Structures are given as structure tokens and as C-alpha cells.
């Protein structure tokens, strides 16, 4: 019993070429987009749902944990083998199985890359709405497991609002199906429940998602401010005006300059902040809203409100946004980014608190975030080689999240809890709340093999293993 035996049996099941166990091979699967680490004992590549079921059964009988993994672009350590064991990688299960245009649904395997689905249906005027910044690489299976968001989820909703059917392999190896093409059904909303469970109650092997029609008109605006406070107040007023942009992103001055130097997207170098605002819908409605937004921004002392004049300019503005974190990587050896959420009226105050935290710890913090839904993304910059700075970074991050929770917010809007924030769950939830969640986990995971030591605070010290000794950081590569 154990990993060696499990690996031999996995080779029998999947073929030797689909099982990696040499340390130089499995090392590639130690990381996600943070740099929490955990070395898998074996990495396997199933080709079908039956394979996944077989893997789970082997894992149970050998007492080895399982961690499902998409593209490894997650930011909270969800796909990291915290306790070693078997990492299941879905690169071979990457087919779009069906596109049902009449019902605007697609059936996909978990390894399908987010953007590939949109590319496949674009010619029909459709798209898959959840658009995490990682969408060029991240898989839909991973998106479902983490309930991923993205800039355009402000109007379109996060992943769970777009999933209507799932096939999962449960913790006993049994294959179960929930939902289908129809949103509502009879019985519990198991699709809704499974989405966002971060691999702790089952392994997703097939997904049915909604496809949305592209709007006829899109307007992309850039509002430029001398002060970050004016930008933040504009967000509050836009929400109050009853305008729902499809995206409402904010960059502070530091981020702006960094992004502009890296991407030359046309952002102003001397501004205190900008808002990147996108509107979609009927041509008439978009024009009216664009005017209303320009009015609100000007009333809040926007220096200028620009509008992308064509698709090329729009793409360029978004390129700056989507590559922002990579750009930040150019000016710091490492950074630690979080995604706490605050009620939208609290954004101005939260930015002040972040500035104070930055001062208190002597660490630079860049802000680029989904302002429209209050989803902050402070990137705390530090030098990984300096253990004292690392300590301070973790403390600064915890201060910010504690503030988010204190004003009625949450510790994560789209990145998930994973192994990064498991200890912080108790800021939000009582023991009783988590006990109820754990009891649901247990009925599906009796053998305790599914993504152990994730999502819930563990009684053990969470960073006791060498592999998990550092917090999730983005390191300059």
C-alpha cells in the first residue's frame, strides 16, 4: 500500500506514458501561478471519465491523496499537492464535445482552455462569458472548480452563473451527473453546489455551459484622474446612478506607469488613477450610458474621458489590463496579490487603508482591480530573498483582508481559498458554519483523499511542510 504501489497500478491503468513519477518530471507540477509549492508523488493524464474513476479507486485503496489540476494558473494553491500524492492533469481531456446552437450550450471536457471555447463559437456571434485574466491558458474545469471571475463578470456573472450541467467523479470513484442543458430541474441544485468547491468534493469530468450572444455595441472608456480618490468616488456614483457597465476596472498611478512602460497601451504616465469602463448592449443604450458615465466621471473631477475609437484601440486598452500583473513583475522581484472584496461604497476608504498599510510596513503596493464589484487586487511588492520583508508582506496582506471583512466584505472574490487563505476562513465563518460545510465535504469524500488540507483551516500548522513554506507569491520569472 502507498505511492509506489499506486504508481505501478496507475501505469497499468493509463499506460506508462501517461504517468510521471521521476522527480525531474513531477517538479514541473509543483507550482501554480502563486508560488506555494508541493511536490506530487505522481502526475497522471487520464483520457476519459472512466480513467478518472479508476484513478480515484486506486488512490482510495492505496491511501494516497488526489489533486485535480487544469492549467495551473490558479492563485490560491488549489491545484498544488500540499500533501503529495497524485496530481490529475486534464490536458488529454480537452475536447469540446458538443455545441448546441439552438439552446446556446456547449458541452466540454475539463481540459478545454477558456478562450478556445469562445474562439470556437465566435463566428456564431456567441461567447463564453467568464473571462479570468488567465483565459488564454486556464481550463474550464479549473474555472468551475474555483468559480472563476474576470473583468466582465460585473454584468455577466461568475462561472457558476454559466454552468448548467456537470459530470463529476465522487470521492468513492462513482461517476455522477447533475443538471444538463436546462438551468432548473427537480431536486437539489448540485451543479451550483459543486461549482467553486475547489476539488474538495469531486473531480469534474464534463461541463455544460451557457453561451452568450455578443452585444451589438461595445463602448470602452478611459477616465483619467489626478487623484485616486476621485476615481474611487466615480465608481460609487456610477453604481448609484443605476448604470451597470459590463466591466469597471481601476488602476492606480503606480500600476498605470508600470503597465504603460510594458505594453504601450496609451495610458497617461502622469495620472493619479484611471478607470477602464466597458459598456455593452443596444447601440442606443450604450450611447446614453457612455454619456452618463462621462458626466459622472467629470463631476468627480476626471481630467479627461477618452473613448476607444475602434476595435484596435479597445484591444490595446484591454491588453494593458490583462497583462498588468506581468508588468508589475518587471518592477519588483516578487509580489503578493490578493482579491478581497468590499461593498462598493467602501472602495475610497479601502484604498486609503491600503495606502496606510503600505506606509506601515514600508512596502510598495500597486492597485489594479475590478472596481465595479469592489473586488480589490492589491499587489504587495517585496524581495523574496529578505525573510523580514516576507513576514511583513504576509502581515500586510492579512491586515488588508481583515479590513475588507470588517466593512462587510470577503477574503476572496474570484481566486478561491485554496491553501493560501484557509486560515483566514475564520475571519468570515464561525466554527459552526465551517462544520456544516465540512459535513458536506465528508459525505462525498469519506476516504479523505480529495484535495486534502484545502479551503478549511486545518488543525495542523498549515505551513509545516517544507514544500508549503512560502505564501503564494508571484515571482519574477
Amino acid at each position, binding site marked *: 500500500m502507498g505511492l509506489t504501489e499506486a504508481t505501478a497500478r496507475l501505469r497499468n491503468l493509463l499506460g506508462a506514458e501517461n504517468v510521471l513519477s521521476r522527480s525531474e518530471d513531477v517538479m514541473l507540477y509543483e507550482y501554480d501561478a502563486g508560488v506555494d509549492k508541493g511536490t506530487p508523488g505522481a502526475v497522471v493524464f487520464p483520457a476519459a471519465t472512466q480513467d478518472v474513476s479508476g484513478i480515484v479507486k486506486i488512490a482510495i485503496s492505496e491511501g494516497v491523496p488526489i489533486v485535480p489540476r487544469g492549467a495551473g494558473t490558479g492563485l490560491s494553491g488549489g491545484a498544488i499537492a500540499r500533501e503529495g500524492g497524485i496530481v490529475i492533469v486534464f490536458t488529454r481531456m480537452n475536447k469540446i464535445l458538443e455545441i*448546441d446552437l439552438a*439552446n446556446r450550450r456547449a458541452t466540454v471536457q475539463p481540459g478545454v482552455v477558456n478562450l478556445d471555447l469562445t474562439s470556437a463559437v465566435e463566428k456564431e456571434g456567441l461567447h463564453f462569458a467568464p473571462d479570468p485574466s488567465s483565459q488564454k491558458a486556464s481550463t474550464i474545469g479549473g474555472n468551475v472548480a474555483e468559480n472563476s*471571475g474576470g473583468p466582465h463578470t460585473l454584468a455577466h456573472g*461568475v462561472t*457558476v452563473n454559466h454552468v448548467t450541467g456537470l459530470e463529476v467523479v465522487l470521492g468513492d470513484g*462513482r461517476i*455522477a451527473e*447533475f*443538471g*444538463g442543458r*436546462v*438551468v*432548473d*430541474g*427537480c*431536486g*437539489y*441544485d*448540485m*451543479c*451550483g*453546489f459543486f*461549482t*467553486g468547491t475547489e476539488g474538495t468534493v469531486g473531480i469534474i469530468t464534463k461541463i455544460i455551459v451557457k453561451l452568450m450572444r455578443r452585444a*451589438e*455595441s461595445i463602448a470602452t472608456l478611459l477616465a483619467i484622474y489626478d487623484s485616486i480618490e476621485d476615481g474611487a468616488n466615480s465608481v460609487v456614483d456610477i*453604481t448609484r446612478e*443605476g448604470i451597470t457597465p459590463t466591466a469597471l476596472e481601476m488602476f492606480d498611478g503606480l500600476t498605470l506607469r508600470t503597465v504603460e512602460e510594458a505594453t504601450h497601451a496609451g495610458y497617461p504616465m502622469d495620472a493619479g488613477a484611471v478607470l477602464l469602463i466597458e459598456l455593452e448592449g*443596444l*447601440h*442606443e443604450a450604450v450611447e*446614453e450610458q457612455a454619456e452618463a458615465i462621462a458626466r459622472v466621471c467629470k463631476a468627480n473631477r476626471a481630467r479627461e474621458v477618452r473613448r476607444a475609437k475602434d476595435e484596435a484601440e479597445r484591444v490595446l486598452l484591454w491588453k494593458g489590463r490583462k497583462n498588468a500583473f506581468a508588468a508589475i513583475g518587471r518592477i519588483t522581484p516578487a509580489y503578493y496579490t490578493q482579491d478581497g*472584496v468590499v*461593498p*462598493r*461604497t467602501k472602495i475610497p476608504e479601502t484604498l486609503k487603508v491600503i495606502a496606510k498599510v503600505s506606509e506601515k510596513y514600508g512596502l510598495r503596493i500597486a492597485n489594479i482591480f475590478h472596481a465595479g*464589484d*469592489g*473586488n480589490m487586487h492589491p499587489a504587495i511588492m517585496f524581495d523574496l530573498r529578505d525573510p523580514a520583508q516576507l513576514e511583513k508582506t504576509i502581515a500586510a496582506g492579512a491586515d488588508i483582508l481583515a479590513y475588507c471583512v470588517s466593512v*462587510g466584505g*470577503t477574503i*476572496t*472574490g*474570484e*481566486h478561491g481559498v485554496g491553501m493560501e*487563505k484557509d486560515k483566514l476562513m475564520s475571519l*468570515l*465563518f*464561525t466554527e*459552526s*458554519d*465551517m*462544520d*456544516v*460545510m465540512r*459535513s*458536506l465535504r*465528508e*459525505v462525498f469524500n469519506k476516504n479523505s483523499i480529495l484535495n486534502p488540507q484545502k*479551503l478549511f483551516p486545518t488543525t495542523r500548522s498549515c505551513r509545516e511542510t517544507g514544500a508549503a513554506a512560502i505564501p503564494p507569491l508571484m515571482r519574477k520569472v
Partner: protein
Amino acid sequence: MASTANSLLGRDLAALIGSDSVCEESAPLTAFAIDGVKPGVWATPGSVEEVAAILQLANERKFTVTVAGGFSHQSMGNVPTNVDVLLRTDRLNRVLHFDPGDLTIGVEAGCKVAEVQKKVATDSLLLPLDISKAQQGTIGGALATATAGPLKHGFGGAREYCIGVSFVTGDGRIAKAGGRVVKNVAGYDLMKLMIGSQGTLGVITSANFKLFPAPKQTRTFLAEFESVEAALEYRDFVLRSALNPMCLELISSRAHAYLDGFDNERWAIVVKGAGSDAVLSRFRRELGAEISKELAGSDEEQLWLGIQEFSETVQKRHQNAMSMTLHVASSGLSNVLCDAEQSAIEQNMLFACVGRAGVASMAAAFVPLSVDPPSVMQYANAVGELRRRMPRDSTAIVTRCPREAKAYFSVWGGPSGDVEAMRAVKRALDPKGILNRGRFLF
């Protein structure tokens, strides 16, 4: 023996929550009979802690508990095995927080849906929970039954905008999930489990919602057709257009008898648009010559109220009518409606329906022709036949029918997905199965 036990239970409940909040008198309890099953006692807890105390006691002694909000939709479900305790949420009726600037609200489960809607409307906001009997129905009940109205087309059901929930599990544990902000992935999304769980997993004590800006003006456009096929063809045209209506309804030819403002028996597509004058004239232009009527103001309001209350109106007129909710794939709606009509005719019943044409969620009515008193088998056969003909991923849930008929079929039909996994969820949250026993799938 049962009455002794209940009386003991009554005393113990009174010790937990005060005797004013417990009632064992026969006459008032009769008014709260569910399909003829009279509760042994009712309890009206005033706090989450009291709800937990009641459930802990019931769980320990294996007494069954059924939750009641406004008692407006209790016709749903199979006949209860028994109801030892009717847990009424009347006293859980506070608004916990209303943040118009953030477009969010948190309310206790016993708040009336209409009152919450009225409250948010004062700040020009909208809670799109346009259920029937909203004056009587509660937030907790609307969530537990996953009831929706015409606004489901534009906003989705409650699962899309309920951002937090607090509840007490069957074994008396106090729990919550989600929170007060519009984007949140911390912890399991138990809102999804509680919504539509029919009171079988826990007692919802409060919920938080994302709100929407109320439209400044709306217009409703009507187009009429000779057949369901023609009507749905027009629906497809609307769905393919650039328009994004708030509501998109299909009204069957026979449904007109239960709605004001229709003077013929044709199928209708009803489109509600919202926006400025320019946006509304775009609606007018795109919708084209098919539009036979445009409604505004009180006429418009009346029409939508009528659609919202369709099943109630049918039921008021025909006590022996059967109401159903149909959820089908949008492309299969036409066939399912033909099947439903055929199943009704074969059982000497009339079929009428209104519903969300775009998302293919319909409120259907089967009305027995008044030649003879209907037999229970007519209901059972009509339901059985419809379910047999429908595609596998469709659902036909009977939301109301004569009690006697319920002995001959499940009002739910087959579950949409793995029933073992659903049972596992039930075991986790209500291990002794005391909640709403007998009324749900298992």
C-alpha cells in the same frame, strides 16, 4: 399516544421560546393543515438561536418539522408523512441591512416579498423576485421553493442574485454561506443548495440579495400567432435580435381566458422592454409588424400582474385544476407543449400555460372539463403521459392538485441528476430526516 407526545413537545417548546410563541389549539392548527395533514403544534421562533433550539430538540427526539412562511405555496410537494411541528417564520421579519449605494439588502426569512420589493423601490431599485402572491409569500419560502416569475428571463432565478444565506440545519446547527458583497467565492456556495431544497435541508433564517437599478420606463409589446410553432419562431427571432428584453413570455391560446386584456384565442409572445425613448423606439422598430398591441402604465402593470398570478387565477376558478411547472430545453419547448396539450386532451382536460419563453420555464394548468367529477386517475395519467413523452432533461413538477390524486404519482417526477449524491447532501444536513418528511423526492 401521539397527542400525549405532542403535548409534551408543546411544553418543551414553550420552555425554549415562550408559551406565546407556541400553539397547540386545534382550530387554528386546522387552518395550517397541509394536504389535510394537521400539524401537532406550531412554533414561531423570534431569533436564529430559537430556531436552532427547536431543531435541536426535534432532532434529538425525532419529531418532524415543516417550515412555513406566508403559507402561500404549501400546495407544493407530496402529502407529508406527518407534521409534528410547524415552524413558522412570521417573527423573523426584520430588514437586517439595506445598502442602496451598494445595491444590496439583507432580510430575515419571514419578510414578505412584496414588502421587501416596496422598500427597495423607494431607492429606485429592484428585487426581481416577482413571485405569485408576493403580498403573502415570504423571502424564505420563495427561496426554498425556487419560485420565479416573468423577470426570470432578464435576471435569472434567485440562484443568480442571492449572495448570502443563513440557515439552521436539520440537526440544529447554525450556518451561513456567502456574504453581503456581490462577488464572493469564500467557502461552499450553500445558497445554491438551499434554493429549491423545499425546506428539506434546513430552515432558512435570512438571506442577502444583489439588487438591480429599477428601469426608468418600460413598454410591453404583444404579438399574436395562430400556432405555438409560429409563436416560438417569433421568440427565436427576438432571441437572435440585438434586443435584450426584461421579460419574454409565451401565452397559450387557452390561457387568455385567465388574463385581462386578451380578446381572442391565439398564442401570444409578450416582450417587455426597458430604457429611454430611443431604446424603446428601437424595440418597436425591431419587433416589427407582428406587434399588435403596445401597453404602458396601468394596462401594462395589470397584464404582468395577471401573468404572475396565472396559476392562482386558474385555481380560484377551478378548484380541481392541476398546476405544473415545466422546465425544458428551449429548442424542445414547442414539442413539450404539444405533448402537454395531448396528454390533457386524452384525460378530458384543458391545457393552458404562460411562461418564460426564452428560458423555457412554464407555468401550466390542466383543467378537468366539467362534464363529470374528475377521477384521480385522470391527473395521474396526464402527468405520467406528459413525463413519458418529454425529453429526458425536462422536468414537470406538479405544484398543486387535489390531495387524493397525490397518492397515485410523485409530484416531482425524476430528479435532474444523481439521486444518491442528493441523498448524501440530505444526510449531511438533516441526518435523521426530520425536515418536511414525505413531501420531497426522498
